[in-house]
């Protein structure tokens, strides 16, 4: 059978981390979770492929880990919070990953964020009871 339809499936560009996404990605997320521990990070760094084998990370997941294909990992169900434990120490921020998802540069991604704050103080002034510092 298919996984059941969800009321969030039609939200564009959004992959809600539910059972359907988490299930096939359990092993990769478990590998990423071990990175909380310095000893595990060291063991991975020494022999990445062997570490994948030990943690049961195989096939496309293993390939993406070895290639540091963070975007591929996200698409295959790596949770963004677990993935951050691998990509942030390697100089790839969550903003870099978000930009890559859209095929834009990180600078463009950051500028888009900054644009969200345009006119903010005017909006708050209109609402009236916000502290504006």
């Amino acid at each position, binding site marked *: 059978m298919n996984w059941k339809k969800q009321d969030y499936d039609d*939200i564009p560009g*959004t992959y809600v981390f539910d059972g359907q996404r988490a299930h096939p990605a359990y092993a990769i997320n478990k590998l990423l979770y071990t990175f909380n521990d310095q000893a595990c990070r060291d063991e991975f760094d020494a022999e990445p492929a062997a570490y994948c084998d030990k943690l049961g990370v195989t096939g496309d997941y293993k390939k993406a880990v070895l290639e540091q294909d963070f975007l591929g990992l996200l698409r295959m169900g790596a949770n963004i919070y677990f993935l951050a434990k*691998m990509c942030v120490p390697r100089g790839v921020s969550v903003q870099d990953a978000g930009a890559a998802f859209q095929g834009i540069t990180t600078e463009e991604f950051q500028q888009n964020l900054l644009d969200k704050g345009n006119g903010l103080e005017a909006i708050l002034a209109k609402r009236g009871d916000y502290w504006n510092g």
Partner: protein
Amino acid sequence: MAKIIGGITSSHIPAVGNAISQGITQEPYWKRFFDGYGPAKEWLAEAKPDLVIVVYNDHGLNFFLDKVPTFALGCADIYENADEGWGLKPVPSFTGDVKLSWHLAESLIEQEFDICMCQEMKVDHGFVNPIRALFGDQEPWPVKAIPLAVNTVQHPVPSAARCLKLGKALGKALESYPEDTRVVILGTGGMSHQLQGERAGIIDVEFDLECMDKIATDPEWMTQFSNADIIRRAGSEGIETIMWLVMRGALKDDAKVIHKHYHAPISNTGAGVLVLDNQ
């Protein structure tokens, strides 16, 4: 008797902790964000809580996907912060209050909230950063703290309505605690943001401000939304804002709004500071 003297909301993003560690809170990018905590700090200095209950979500430090509790309550003497994978130096540990924790566990389970009881619990940036922003880095910390973790990571996550009900039950639980303890509840996380997918980077200022206004004065308004509705407006990680309702539910309906501050963007999010006086 325990007394809920107030509730405060705060962002809990990692960048807040980093900015504090790096001493850049008064640089242009950060100044307006951190200045928004000023009146909250003043209120806290006056209100002098003994203990904060921090409503937050774990981001993969204490909980892995093998066991994802919907609601998890700390029942320990001490809560340690720890390396989340980035090699950062943990902040000093937090002192809990086990007798209060077990009282809350008993009362919440009696009120039919099926919490997970945690006698050992590491606390991540979601717990730590609101305390750092509100109290500054101190050792020892000037208040005791109890973690109340809400699952906002592995869907299905609880609804806004369930979070508000948990807050009401938490309020009742605290009211029935015989010891004199002055408690502030921190609702953390949010506001609108999305970290993953082609829609990464969204922020919805209008929705955030509507949420702030309504959570302050009419929190039931928020329960009209399904989690899909909230994700649609506020982003996949914006769902964290439901945790504010746990704080709000614990307070009186007519708790007084002392302070409202909103800033966007900060890192990837919209960030709101609400201070509600419950006295």
